[in-house]
């Protein structure tokens, strides 16, 4: 299906992200399905896969025998952790893509980036136990999972450094997609680093099931992934709907969302460190939780503002659908194939003339070329040279 000349190492990093994500989903969801079926049977058919003997609910003994609650946790998290990367990997791909385009620079260390995506996907299947350090699982396997989890920090760090390398020496144009991609990098760093605390069972003794965890996964897989989605939306909206989105509205949306999310989730770390426990409906029963209330007030106000800011995005989206300025084929001077076809693309995407690929996906600012970008489909002869 790939176009002539589109070798794996010429694919945009977005495709690498989607590819690995597809594999993760393929292998992970089946496991959740199995677990879900067993759980449903426990609920409705009176089996006891996960339900141990001698449960006393409302003073009545349940007639289940010797099931294992931990078994469910293992099945669930074997799916659950890859799911985290299913959410974030496409975001990483989009971020790399957009950063390179608007820094007018090739992605720094393309091969390393692609390999890092694969590495994260691979390691993602071997770290589910770090959700279960204090669950009663063997402490020795807990330690093994801890080391494996720490090792996921390595490909993540590689990506971060390469993103910085891509920006360094670039010619950065702060369009709304670029702003969100930059926000993605910042959020990914902030959220990823707190993972290094949670990856250690000893420290997890203090932080497990506190708001620290909530802050961590919201930053890294929640907000960061959603920033990736926003970047993708602002970046590809012209291609998808043939009109440009409003830049000023996009920028306002970014500033409010960026500041807002940090105002929500940074204080959350401190609630967690002080022992604030997640999934508590009210803090009134526990004495020490009272002291943390001011932080909660701050976060809630920030949450209201951030939520309201999203209305700007929704308005911008639908308003631009109707009234946005017509988009040219290639509004961002980007190099990948989607920008060689009409906006929006015809039914078979290329109107019958399928492109051939002659070069890597991120040929920006190549010395000797007239334009500061060389689309993938340009044959060497077609490249205009600088005088």
């Amino acid at each position, binding site marked *: *299906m*790939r*176009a*002539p*000349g*589109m*070798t794996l*190492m*010429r694919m945009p990093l977005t495709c690498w992200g989607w590819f690995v994500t597809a594999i993760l989903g*393929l*292998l*992970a*969801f*089946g*496991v959740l*399905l*199995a*677990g879900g*079926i*067993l759980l449903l*049977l426990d609920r409705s*058919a*009176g*089996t*006891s*896969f996960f339900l141990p*003997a001698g449960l006393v609910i409302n003073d009545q003994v349940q007639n289940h*025998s*010797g*099931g*294992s609650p931990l*078994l469910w946790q*293992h*099945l669930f998290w*074997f799916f659950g952790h890859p799911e985290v990367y299913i959410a974030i990997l496409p975001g990483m791909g989009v971020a790399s893509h957009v950063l390179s385009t608007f820094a007018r620079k090739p992605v720094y*260390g*393309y*091969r*390393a*980036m692609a390999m890092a995506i694969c590495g994260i996907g691979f390691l993602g299947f071997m770290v589910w136990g770090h959700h279960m350090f204090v669950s009663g699982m063997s402490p020795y396997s807990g330690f093994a999972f801890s080391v494996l989890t720490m090792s996921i920090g390595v490909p993540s760090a590689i990506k971060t450094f390469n993103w910085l390398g891509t920006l360094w020496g670039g010619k950065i144009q702060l369009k709304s997609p670029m702003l969100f991609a930059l926000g993605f990098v910042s959020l990914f760093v902030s959220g990823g680093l707190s993972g290094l605390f949670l990856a250690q069972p000893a420290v997890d003794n203090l932080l497990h099931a506190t708001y620290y965890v909530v802050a961590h996964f919201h930053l890294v897989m929640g907000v960061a992934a959603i920033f990736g989605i926003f970047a993708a939306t602002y970046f590809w909206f012209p291609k998808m709907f043939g009109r440009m989105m409003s830049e000023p509205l996009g920028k306002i949306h970014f500033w409010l969302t960026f500041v807002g999310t940090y105002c929500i989730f940074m204080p959350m770390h401190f609630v967690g460190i002080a022992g604030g426990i997640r999934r508590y409906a009210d803090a009134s029963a526990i004495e020490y939780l009272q002291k943390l209330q001011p932080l909660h007030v701050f976060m809630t106000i920030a949450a209201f503002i951030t939520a309201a800011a999203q209305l700007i995005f929704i308005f911008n989206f639908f308003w631009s659908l109707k009234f946005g300025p017509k988009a040219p084929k290639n509004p961002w001077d980007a190099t990948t194939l989607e920008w060689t076809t009409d906006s929006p693309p015809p039914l*078979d995407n290329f109107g019958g003339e*399928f492109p*051939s*690929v*002659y*070069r*890597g996906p991120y*040929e920006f600012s*190549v*010395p*000797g*070329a007239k334009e500061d970008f*060389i689309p993938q489909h340009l*044959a*060497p002869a077609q*490249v205009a*040279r600088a005088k």
Partner: protein
Amino acid sequence: MAGTTVTEIPELIGTGRNGGGASSGDGGGEGSGPSASGGVPQRTYVTGMIVGLGGILMFFMALVSAYIVRKGMPNSTWIPLEVPHILWLNTVILVASSFTLARSRSLFRADNEDGFRYWWGWTTVLGVFFLVGQVIAWRQLVAEGIYLQSNPSSSFFYVFTAAHGLHLVGGVLALLSVAFRPTHRLTRGTATEVVSIYWHFMDGLWVFLFLLLLLGR
């Protein structure tokens, strides 16, 4: 690519590295690229089936690991289940169906349409026999008063057989559709190939599950 030095740049504007263009041929199999028609190369369907089987395999492996863990639980009151003897017959039937299918495929390649239909039909019949046999096995267990919730071992027995049975029903339907329905996007060669891959997989999977239920009690 990463780490290539700035000296290669003229080459970038120039030929572009390792070919590209029409020279490298198109991605599709059977000489039909996307550029020719909007269609999908036949080999895609085979790969698709293999990839799909990967997902199915993970599903069953999850169940199997659950079986092993659950069985190893302390004080789990696990009563080993005496598998109904008809399962032996069923297993033989299913294994036989794989051979008839292989025979039918080879005849198809030899353009022996009648022979192909004959053995293909036998495969379908054997598949139905197997399913019926599984139901009989269930009825025997029920007659002995062994139900889904009676014991973890019986629970797993029903789960395994039901999950595998449902997948096999799909297989039978596929066999029938190939036999009677003209295929549009797939050539019949691909259709038969894809279906037999699935069938052989389900066969092997059953043998594995049967051995697990038999030896892993």
